[in-house]
């Protein structure tokens, strides 16, 4: 009986903390971390204290514009909100208005404007304000770029030349042709790091001799929700940490087959002493690398020997920046934005409550 009970508790614990991956689907997906779910006991705890105890963050990989880190012990709602905010609500600067004076290239004006918009512009968005609909552009909310470009024949090209690189001058219009035109105090504010596109070699248009392009492009501050060009991340994703539970030793040639079912580096085949004999045995060494392909569940010989799960509150985040903001900065900005969103709602709620209070007071006065 007692054995049964502990078994039940174990199973309950697994249901609570793990997402179960079965042959034909994924089970036990939703979090059951709420009161009265598995017991009728009135929970006496401070949810913030529990959060503090459980939360763990670990940076796994970090370069200037890419990072991988583990966020352990948070609810999926928080993890997902952070991801959504990173993608859609962290502001950057991007080209929003294009004034085309001359464009005789084969790229249509509207397509050209769209292409220009997608070029990441290296500038700290915190140094600018949002430009509201009816506001006039100022040096605090707009950055001006100019393109004045013409394609010509190369007079020094050989007569039988067929390579466009030799034949023409300026036949590739690159993002390096976007010339920043400092307005107002911008020249002083950005002496140390002049504003320019993140990459100099983004191809905007291909041209032929006689074609000209002259335009003025205005950058504005915006967020990815409005248009993806303002999104500071190339991608921000998370996945749950895979877990491979080997219930029964897998030995001999089966061990090799077992290892081949997973991504490289997940399973190691080691020599292990079983019954005074050295046998090849499969050992889980690095489940993080697994793609959870479920290949292992297709083979009869591994039935009931292995269990695949994912740890429900272990999020592996990957944040890849477009090069405008540093990746850790994006995450920190996202946290700030979430805080402001919460406080804005709190303020709205308090205002509303005050209103209701006032109304009630008025009513009671009327009664008198």
């Amino acid at each position: 009986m007692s054995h049964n009970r502990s078994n039940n508790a174990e199973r309950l614990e697994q249901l609570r903390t793990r997402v179960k991956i079965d042959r034909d689907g994924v089970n036990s997906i939703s979090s059951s971390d709420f009161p009265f779910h598995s017991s009728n006991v009135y929970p006496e705890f401070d949810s913030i204290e529990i959060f503090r105890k459980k939360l763990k963050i670990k940076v796994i990989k970090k370069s200037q514009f890419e990072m991988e880190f583990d966020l352990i012990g948070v609810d999926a709602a928080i993890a997902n909100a952070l991801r959504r905010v990173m993608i859609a609500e962290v502001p950057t600067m991007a080209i929003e208005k294009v004034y085309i004076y001359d464009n005789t290239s084969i790229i249509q004006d509207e397509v050209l404007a769209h292409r220009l918009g997608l070029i990441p512009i290296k500038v700290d968005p915190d140094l600018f304000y949002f430009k509201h609909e009816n506001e006039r552009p100022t040096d605090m909310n707009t950055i001006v770029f100019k393109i004045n470009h013409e394609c010509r024949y190369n007079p020094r090209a050989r007569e039988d030349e067929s390579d466009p690189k030799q034949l023409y001058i300026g036949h590739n219009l690159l993002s390096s042709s976007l010339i920043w035109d400092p307005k107002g105090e911008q020249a002083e504010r950005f002496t140390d790091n002049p504003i320019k596109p993140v990459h100099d070699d983004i191809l905007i248009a291909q041209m032929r001799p006689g074609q000209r392009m002259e335009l003025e492009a205005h950058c504005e501050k915006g967020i990815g929700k409005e248009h993806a060009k303002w999104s500071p991340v190339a991608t921000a994703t998370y996945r749950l940490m895979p877990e491979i539970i080997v219930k029964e030793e897998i030995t001999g040639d089966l061990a090799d087959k077992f290892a081949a079912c997973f991504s490289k580096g997940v399973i190691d085949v080691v020599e292990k002493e079983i019954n005074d004999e050295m046998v090849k045995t499969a050992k889980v060494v690095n489940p993080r690398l697994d793609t959870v392909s479920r290949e292992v569940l297709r083979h009869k010989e591994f039935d009931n020997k292995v269990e695949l799960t994912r740890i429900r509150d272990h999020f592996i985040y990957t944040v890849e920046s477009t090069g405008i903001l540093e990746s850790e900065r994006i995450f920190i900005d996202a946290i700030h934005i979430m805080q402001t969103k919460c406080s804005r709602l709190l303020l709205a709620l308090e205002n509303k409550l005050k209103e209701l209070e006032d109304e009630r007071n008025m009513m009671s006065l009327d009664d008198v």
Partner: protein
Amino acid sequence: MNAPDRYDLFYLPEGAKKMTITPDPKVENGATFDILREDHTMGNLIRSKLLEESQVTFAGYKVPHPLEHNVVLKVQTTLDTKPEMMVAKALNDLITEVSYLKQKFVEELGRARALVIPREQKPMEEQSQIGIPPTTTTTITTTRENNTHTNPPPAGSNTGGVAVDMDF
């Protein structure tokens, strides 16, 4: 032509209230919160936070129409509190939790930075290779030389540090 304005996503229309609260006509201590210009980000966050409270008997949210950027939150609580109070508590808790998360993240970032030798010092580090155990130097130098993310060493194997490809 009749597409909604892009800024409709986040600009509150003039004169509109960010939040309206309607008490439920049938259920005691139930209320509907209409929140303008918010989406699943906040809706799901508040809902999940409310579900952690033992005084909340029901919490759910919906985005009624994909082209209207509003969220409807329905909350019912036990009789010893009010839905408004619980939502306020949830929001306050969220702010505290998220600031704690930020503090932890910055701490961890500092720890990770301290473990890594900045790139500028690489020649010096290579010169003084004698004092460093051979295994670590090889991993560090190979990652430095490649300087790509194509073939990172197994991340789980570095239990102590973050000596993978970092260049702060």
